[in-house]
């Protein structure tokens, strides 16, 4: 029990910060940023202490729950606000609070001067609280509460600059697309409860096998459809690119490092349910993940908005994580989740630093040679690029390699192939981004003056840069590894042996290096432009389609939004307006006409009836009163 004793405070500190800032924010003013950073920083410290306490225990005892109070309890349905500390949740806590703290500190500088400064930090703290609830909740209902809570904060923060209609629309889109996923998630919860009689995560996992293949497949697919919303996978990823309208620290924290990984966490957490389906659910997870990885990487390669490139990249990397889950490599998925949190947050914050000095510019075609003006941003960003491209010894190399190797070992060469091609594409679009923005002659949009990141921003960039370089050590073969730590919670994972030990990482490395090389050929030096033109000509319709986001938004608008709106109008105007109302008013008219002859008795004024009626009621009451008094 003692091991989980701090958990309520880990959730409670940012929650308290949020309440204080949202209620008294305007009076607190400038100190809001410090209060919010302090709250999440302290939560991080408590997370580290909890982690240390867990390490002090034998591996199989690293699991404790702390019940705070009862939540919804009716009949045989019983859930509590109860927090579970184990290997998986503590890793998530460290990521959320660790990366979260750095992004809070960065925001103090980034958001300085915004008229709604303290509200921003209130929302940020609120987000952290819900995210921590999501990863610490010991039952599926509480996980769902956190799940919806982070969705709300995402809505609030995407639409933070609500004066801009485009931001408000993006916020609404994010919420609604996620609601579609939540609809499935909720039904998945019902299936699990009715089949197993509990929503306790550990109990679900312990009994999942008893559900039978049919129900567990249904439950797994419903939950996964929920995950495709929150974690932006096919078919529900369309909200994430638009979500870039939010302030950039939000993109870093919510739409790269933490919230969007909630689906990965959920599937990993409930992996026995997915396994109980006899492979069907996991296969879907794996293929959807792989296809999303490739699909989004293609769009990233054709995009000019720096934040949207990073957004597509996030969708793609999340796809990798689902690919890993699909082949049963749960700890590899979590490993990639952790390293991705480092390098993707880093790159978003770098992009933010650029936008900060370029007056909000996001079009990469108007940026060039920024390395000369902003070396800290450039070099930390480069660390991120190398990490995501899977170049040894940067963090992404180890985690991406673990995923690809698992696919191979599972014998799923198709998934391995898609993953490897995507690795090449990833390195390519990242090289494209980096070279466009940082290399070449220094150019900035008119009226702006590029300078390096201010101290507080650098204070976030540098640690994340370092983690992107050395983050792989948490899972270095032969050392105390993340995989071993997670094993009791997620099960054992296979590692390559023999010649594969070197061959698989070698191939992944070659793919990444090739991508970078192609990027360099196409965007740097003599003749790059000509080569690019030839490629575009050769790619033809594919390039055109990728530039138009494969028309998916338009297809959804035509096949779902427009018919839905037409149906709503039909119900309102025709069914209700002319149909039911027509009958009602027609009846009234008919009665009105046919009672012409009785008009002397009946005045036709309802208020006359009303008064008569009231009179009657008063009489009855008077009678009542006398009876009671006399009795």
């Amino acid at each position, binding site marked *: 029990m003692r091991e989980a004793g701090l958990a309520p405070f880990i959730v409670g500190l940012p929650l308290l910060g949020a309440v204080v800032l*949202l209620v008294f924010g305007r009076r607190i003013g400038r100190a809001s940023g410090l209060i919010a950073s302090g709250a999440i920083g302290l939560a991080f410290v408590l997370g580290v202490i909890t982690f240390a306490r867990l390490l002090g225990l034998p591996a199989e005892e690293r699991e404790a729950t702390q019940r705070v*109070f*009862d*939540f*919804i*309890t*009716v*009949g045989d*349905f019983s859930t509590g606000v109860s927090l579970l500390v184990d290997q998986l949740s503590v890793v998530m806590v460290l990521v959320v609070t660790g990366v979260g703290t750095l992004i809070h500190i960065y925001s103090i500088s980034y958001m300085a001067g915004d008229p709604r400064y303290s509200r921003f930090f209130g929302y940020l703290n609120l987000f952290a609280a819900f995210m921590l609830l999501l990863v610490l909740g010991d039952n599926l*209902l509480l996980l*769902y*509460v956190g799940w*919806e*809570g982070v969705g*709300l904060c995402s809505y609030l923060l995407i*639409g933070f600059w*609500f*004066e801009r*209609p485009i931001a*408000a*629309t993006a916020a*609404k889109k994010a*919420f*609604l697309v996620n*609601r*579609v996923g*939540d*609809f499935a998630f*909720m*039904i998945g*919860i*019902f*299936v699990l*409860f*009715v089949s197993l009689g509990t929503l306790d995560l550990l109990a679900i996992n312990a009994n999942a096998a008893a559900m039978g293949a049919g129900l567990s497949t249904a439950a797994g697919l419903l939950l996964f459809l929920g995950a495709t919303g929150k974690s932006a996978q096919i078919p529900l990823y369309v909200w994430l690119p638009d979500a870039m309208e939010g302030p950039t620290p939000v993109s870093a924290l919510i739409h790269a490092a933490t919230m969007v990984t909630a689906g990965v966490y959920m599937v990993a957490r409930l992996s026995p349910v997915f396994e109980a389906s006899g492979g069907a659910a996991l296969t879907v997870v794996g293929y959807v993940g792989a296809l999303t990885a490739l699909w989004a990487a293609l769009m990233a390669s054709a995009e000019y908005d720096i934040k949207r490139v990073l957004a597509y990249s996030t969708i793609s990397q999340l796809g990798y994580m689902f690919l890993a889950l699909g082949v049963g490599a749960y700890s590899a998925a979590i490993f990639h989740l952790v390293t991705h949190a480092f390098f993707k947050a880093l790159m978003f914050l770098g992009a933010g630093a650029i936008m900060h000095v370029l007056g909000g510019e996001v079009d990469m075609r108007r940026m060039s040679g920024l390395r000369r003006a902003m070396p800290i941003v450039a070099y930390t960003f480069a660390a991120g690029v190398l990490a995501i491209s899977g170049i040894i010894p940067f963090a992404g190399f180890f985690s991406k390699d673990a995923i690809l190797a698992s696919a191979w070992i599972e014998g799923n060469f198709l998934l391995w192939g898609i993953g490897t091609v995507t690795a090449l594409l990833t390195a390519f679009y990242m090289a494209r981004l980096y070279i466009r923005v940082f290399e070449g002659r220094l150019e900035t949009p008119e009226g702006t003056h590029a300078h390096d990141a201010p101290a507080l921003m650098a204070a976030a960039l540098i640690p994340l840069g370092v983690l992107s370089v050395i983050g792989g050590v948490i899972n270095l073969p032969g050392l105390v590894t993340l995989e071993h730590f997670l094993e009791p919670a997620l099960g054992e994972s296979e590692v390559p042996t023999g010649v594969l030990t070197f061959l698989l990482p070698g191939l992944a490395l070659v793919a990444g290096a090739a991508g970078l090389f192609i990027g360099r050929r196409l965007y740097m030096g003599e003749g790059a432009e000509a080569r690019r033109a030839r490629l575009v000509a050769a790619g033809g319709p594919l390039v055109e389609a990728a530039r138009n986001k494969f028309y998916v938004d338009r297809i959804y608008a035509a096949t779902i939004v427009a018919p839905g*709106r037409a*149906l*709503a*109008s039909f*119900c*309102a105007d025709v*069914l*209700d307006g002319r149909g*039911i*109302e027509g009958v*009602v008013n027609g009846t*009234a008219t008919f009665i009105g006409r046919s009672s012409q002859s009785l008009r002397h008795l009946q005045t036709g004024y*309802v*208020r006359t009836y*009303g008064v008569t*009626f*009231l009179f009657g*009621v008063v009489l*009855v*009451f008077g*009678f*009542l009163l006398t*009876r*009671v008094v006399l*009795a």
Partner: protein
Amino acid sequence: MNDLPWLDITIFIPLGGAILLGAVPKDRVGALRTGALIVAVAAFAASLGILAGFEVGEAGFQLGSSLSWISEWGIGYTTGVDGVSLWIIMLTTFLMPLAVLASWSVDKQLKPYFIFLLSLETGMLGVFSALDLFLFYVFWEAVLVPMYFLIGLWGYGRRVYAATKFFLYTLAGSLFLLLAILYLYFAAPGEPTFDYRSLLGTELAFGTQVLLFLGFFASFAVKIPLVPLHTWLPDAHTEAPTAGSVMLAAVLLKMGAYGLIRFGIPLFPDAAQALAPLIITLAVIGIVYGALIAIVQRDIKRLVAYSSVAHLGFVVLGLFVGTIQGMSGGILQMLNHGLSTGALFLLVGVLYDRRHTRLIADFGGLAKSMPVYAGVFLLVALSSLGLPGLNGFVGEFLVLLGTYETYAWWVIPATFGIVLAAIYLLWAYQRVFHGDITNEANRGLSDFNVREYAMILPVVALIVFIGVYPKPFLDRIEPSAQKLVSQLNDSSVLPEGSGVAEAP
């Protein structure tokens, strides 16, 4: 203290207060307002006595009294409260002071206005407390009159049309109710009586049960309202003054759902069980249909009105799926809908006082001029669309869970209702609050004043409290709900071939 008949005291404080207000000169605006407020607060304070005296874990009726009234006809003044009615009674007394506070902008004939408003409260409290069918019917009809005048005299726009429609619709339903009550009265063996508890367990042929159930149902379905009997609601809601809309949505609509489970199920369990699939179908249609229509509304009040059709669909769905989660969730959802929708109407009223329009298109960018108002509105909207952590989720979740247990496939369209709710609320929210201020009239709007804070903060506090810690509420509902579920499921003479739908 606890020996006092708090329930009866609570019922009659508003009526007594209304009579006292009659003595205040009609031009003493301040005295009338303060007086009405004091009466409403006094009734709320008295109702806390009910809450304090209510024994948790008890399924039967408590805290009531039983007086003989017209003994030769078997009519008595019999009252009582159980887990079904407790929270609706508390909701009524809780909202009335807020409704009075929302009436500050009423500028004509203040005296009759408050008299009607307060007598309305006694009527509603009586409906939820009466355990004598005759008494129930008296209160039921007594509610109609003040509401008719509140809409017809103090309403907006097409108020006379709306009030007439409301009156005739409800009256038509009530006739069937009266006939059914009288039939039951004469059909029951032994000493003729209107006493609810004596009539329970009256053996009736299945066909008779169905007819009588439908008689009650006709009246209640109009009130709830179930599609297609709902078209009085958007007009009445929209044209009523703020306090009228609040009480109409929060409390009056609950009279229908309440009647179904107080009388429909216990008096005619076999009929209720046999007709449950039909009622569930209507409820689910209401959820989807109401929400779809809400999406394309241009008037905020009409939008909220149609959202009520959808929300009441959830309530009725929960009540008839025959599971404890559904029943408890449905009963809790009556309270939740009262709070969320009541709050939405209060908020729309605040806006109407400032801008004298309710058209969504007339607004835009209000989050900038009224930031606190915008924040509170969002919170209430989120509660209405069932965001976890707020009250609406608890009820809807339980209803849907309960539905899945017995009518698994129905859960798909019903759950889709929560997607639609997000669409109509957030889209409207965006058009009213987001974007730049395009209409100059919206620029200088003032945020809440002290009176408005006092009006809205108590509701917001409850919305959050129930969402985070629903246990005290559910604990008091559950025993009575359990009893109803057994009545619905263990009916005695279910004829062959009319079985309940099996879960697929």
